[in-house]
């Protein structure tokens, strides 16, 4: 039997969770610190190098990857834009199969529902498989505070749990951790001998978990898709821990955002392979499992009860923004993180919130408020690699622009607005523009010495070329004579 609270609580605030009021300053500080750690950055880039190779190989096996993206994006667009019809349809089908649905307007409600279910079930030991929605609602902390021992069964999540850190990447939670660090971690918490073999480390976790699967009485999972046609939930994983989490305990609780609905089972014929290919460079993830409810009469094993918690938590706010509604099409593959130069240089914790990377930067202001989180939309060069990588064609980098526009409208910086107004004034008068340009070129050497705010930010790490003697327009006039 698992002892109460076997996982040690961190004594300091964990990384990756910024206080909203100081989130921007914290972002800049964390980014600078992470960037200085060139070894860490190189390690992450090396790990991703393998992903790029597999992804390219696997993508080439699609006879038309772009058309596959079309199909996937239309499947999600069609579902999300008919959520009013499809979500009730899903719920009716699911409940007809014997499962129970609980509706949660926000994170607090979801936590209360789950704690209530655990109490009703007189649960002692809880095992969890990977669920970003549970991270979003800070479920583990609530369960531990209520005295339940919670173990993350996914290897990466388990490692992060032992480290007292949230996931670094929502598909590869511990991609930033070296094997020797994992060896030390297991030695410290599980008493196992040191090893630098990934196979051995995986076996250590496997042996540790097997006992827990058999002993746990509650399994908590997420869901990747909710199939309206059949009332099944679809769970994708490589390790088999989710299947084990749901096979043996007597109670299964699944948590899902309301936007995970797809209309037809057939939609999975495109979405499952693409989730695997974009997310991990695989043809299919190892286990894709459809659950329709608790064990049926005549079935040998399986939970006696299955509960599904459907979570809003501001998803309806994002739904109401027709321009950015497609951000809800996200299938959480993580491809946008994998290609983002910002993510690769600042790391997953710098974002300071549950969902990192480009898609996280798009949705966080909607889920948690523009005022404190819009710096994430600013922290991008808008290169667009994310949008190109997205299997469901979310217009990610353009949404970052839209977020910036929304912030400028609702909470503009007075100084910035004045600056832009001034630039427009000058740019509307060619003679003034030419004069301003001349002045800029002539004063550049002085400016380099004085280093006013924006210029100093540039000059700290980069040089500026000397100003040319004349502008193009002046040279052109000369040339025409």
């Amino acid at each position: 039997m698992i002892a109460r609270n076997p996982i040690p609580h961190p004594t300091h605030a964990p990384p990756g969770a910024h206080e909203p009021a100081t989130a921007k300053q914290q972002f800049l500080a964390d980014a600078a610190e992470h960037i200085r750690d060139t070894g860490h950055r190189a390690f992450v880039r090396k790990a991703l190098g393998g992903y790029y190779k597999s992804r390219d190989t696997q993508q080439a096996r699609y006879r038309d990857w772009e058309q596959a993206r079309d199909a996937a994006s239309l499947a999600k667009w069609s579902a999300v834009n008919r959520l009013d019809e499809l979500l009730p349809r899903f719920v009716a089908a699911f409940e007809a199969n014997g499962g129970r649905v609980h509706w949660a307007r926000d994170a607090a409600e979801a936590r209360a529902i789950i704690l209530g279910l655990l109490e009703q079930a007189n649960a002692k030991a809880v095992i969890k498989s990977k669920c970003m929605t549970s991270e979003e609602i800070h479920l583990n902390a609530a369960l531990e505070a209520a005295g339940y021992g919670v173990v993350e069964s996914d290897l990466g999540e388990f490692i992060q749990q032992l480290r007292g850190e949230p996931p670094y990447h929502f598909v590869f939670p511990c991609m930033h951790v070296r094997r020797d660090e994992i060896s030390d971690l297991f030695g410290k918490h599980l008493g196992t001998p040191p090893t630098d073999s990934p196979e051995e480390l995986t076996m250590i976790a496997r042996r540790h978990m097997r006992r827990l699967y058999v002993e746990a009485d509650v399994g908590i999972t997420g869901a990747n898709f909710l199939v309206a046609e059949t009332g099944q939930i679809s769970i994708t994983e490589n390790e088999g821990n989710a299947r084990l989490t749901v096979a043996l305990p007597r109670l299964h609780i699944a948590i899902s955002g309301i936007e995970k609905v797809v209309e037809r089972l057939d939609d999975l014929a495109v979405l499952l392979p693409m989730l695997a290919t974009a997310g991990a460079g695989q043809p299919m993830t190892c286990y894709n499992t459809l659950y329709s409810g608790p064990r049926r009469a005549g079935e040998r094993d399986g939970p006696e009860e299955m509960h599904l918690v459907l979570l809003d938590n501001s998803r309806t706010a994002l739904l109401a923004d027709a321009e950015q509604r497609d951000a809800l099409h996200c299938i959480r593959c993580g491809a946008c993180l994998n290609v983002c130069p910002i993510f690769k240089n600042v790391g997953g914790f710098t974002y300071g919130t549950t969902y990192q990377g480009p898609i996280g930067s798009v949705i966080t202001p909607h889920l948690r408020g523009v005022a404190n989180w819009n710096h994430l939309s600013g922290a991008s060069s808008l290169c667009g690699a994310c949008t190109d990588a997205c299997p469901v064609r979310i217009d990610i980098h353009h949404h970052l622009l839209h977020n910036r526009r929304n912030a400028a409208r609702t909470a503009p910086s007075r100084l910035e607005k004045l600056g832009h107004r001034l630039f427009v004034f000058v740019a509307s008068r060619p003679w003034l523009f030419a004069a301003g340009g001349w002045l800029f070129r002539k004063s550049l050497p002085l400016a380099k010495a004085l280093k006013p705010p924006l210029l100093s930010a540039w000059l700290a790490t980069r040089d500026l070329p000397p100003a040319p003697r004349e502008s193009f327009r002046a040279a052109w006039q000369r040339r025409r004579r």
Partner: protein
Amino acid sequence: MNVSLFIPCFVDQMAPQVGLAAATVLERLGHTVEFRPAQTCCGQPSFNAGYWDEAKAVAIRALEVFAGAEAVVGPSGSCVAMMRVFYTQLLADTPHEPAALDLAARTFEFGEFLVNKLGVTDVGARFPHRVTYHDGCHGLRELRLKDEPRQLLAAVRDLELVECDEPESCCGFGGLFSVKFPMVSTAMAEVKGGSLARTDCDYIVSSDPSCQLQLDGWFAKNLAAGGKRPRTIHLAEVLAGEPR
């Protein structure tokens, strides 16, 4: 054809040789080139910062400046993307939308104009150096240009083109991003600059002067002593056969 040059504000004030090289190439091919001095800026800095009302004012002016031009050609992927892709968004549901759509249909990036509009890949240039090409993000992802500059470079006599290991990754400029998040911008320059330098090239060819500013700026500060320091050069300058 009658080509109206679109000279981005940055090129006008800080990199005039790029505009002059573009004009040289076009005239060499037998086209008439004009420069309308009423032009100033495309408005992208305000647009990217989210100040769309301000950007609109600049965009509307640009529509007037280039009204009636047969072809508007600019040596900058990001500025051409602004005019061709984002003006229609910016001016959607306004009386200026038709004019924006009209301008978009006749605005081209320089390399794109040569290959896709004029059907020309060999402009008779010679550039006896080892070069690599940096794909600027706007040109690559907003204008969908990838092969065009490479086709043009392949036809340049005595030029050796090598690809770096990550031609498509962002240099980190991103406009005001470069000074609002300078550490991140610099880290990106470091990564891309390293990749470009590993080709052991003499020149890095780009179709975006802002990328050139970022990369040159980083190289100047970080690759000073020892090792070869590649210099950036605009595609138009290579094709005009005028190395700096």
